[in-house]
């Protein structure tokens, strides 16, 4: 079999880095359901404790539904969102990547930076206030995803924006879920 990509390299990279799953393509509810079912099955096989599984499930749903609701639909397949689930020592990682308009960067950045500065009790208060004031948007979101991801995972969100051109950037969001 001839191929321009070396499958064994990909396999090695995935197993050396303990990557469970990599996906690139459009996100929809059916895709989310299957990814979750697949990951849960794998975690059960690995005898991962229920509390950690629940936290990972939580963070995955919020992260994936976020993308589902905010992904840019373009004709360019190369602009499809991305998902990676992996393991780093004792923690699991959920990494998502999607293109966003450059003029939206500061809104997203400010939102995450603000949440990342809060301690546990402040997060709880912020969540409660934000929920009271939230209105379900046209795309069906409550605007609470990032706060919930930090609360449930117990870890701050890492992020990075890679400018792709004058209009768009690739936004990477990394959430670590550990048992604490």
């Amino acid at each position, binding site marked *: 079999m001839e191929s321009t990509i070396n499958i064994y390299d990909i396999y090695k990279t995935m197993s050396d880095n303990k990557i469970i799953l990599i996906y690139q393509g459009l996100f929809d509810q059916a895709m989310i359901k299957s990814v979750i079912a697949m990951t849960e099955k794998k975690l059960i096989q690995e005898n991962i404790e229920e509390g950690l599984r629940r936290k990972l*499930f939580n963070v995955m749903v919020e992260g994936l*539904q976020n993308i589902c609701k905010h992904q840019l639909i373009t004709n360019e397949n190369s602009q499809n969102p991305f998902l990676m689930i992996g393991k780093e020592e004792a923690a699991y990682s959920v990494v998502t990547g999607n293109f966003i308009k450059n003029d939206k960067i500061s809104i997203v950045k400010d939102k995450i930076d603000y949440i990342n500065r809060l301690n546990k009790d402040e997060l709880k208060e912020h969540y409660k206030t934000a929920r009271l004031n939230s209105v379900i948007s046209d795309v069906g979101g409550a605007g609470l995803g990032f706060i919930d991801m930090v609360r449930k995972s117990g870890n701050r969100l890492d992020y990075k924006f890679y400018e792709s051109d004058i209009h768009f950037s690739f936004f990477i969001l990394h959430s670590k879920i550990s048992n604490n």
Partner: protein
Amino acid sequence: MLNIIATEDTPEITFNGETNELIISGRSLPEDVSTFYKPVFEWLEGFSNTQTPGTVFKFKLEYFNTASSKIILDILMKLEDMMESKQSELKIEWYYFESDDDMLEAGEEYKELVEIPFHLIAC
């Protein structure tokens, strides 16, 4: 009666207007919460116009996403209005797995927000 069968991403809804036992159970992460919960609010609207002695609303959720968390708050607010306007008896039972601290905490947070008898029950 309102009966909605559970799916992988939506909860089971069993509202019985004769026994006045209203139950939401399972997982709630629908793609579109507003559409999914529309019949719930419509049913509650009709129910609030009838006599409702000793109503028990049971939340038996194992997971809900943030959009559902907002909807649950709206349901509780609706129940509170019902209780205040008719002075009918109503109580909430919030079930959680004993090992699930997040679900307990979620129940505690709702309990602080509404003036309805609210019981947290470990199972």
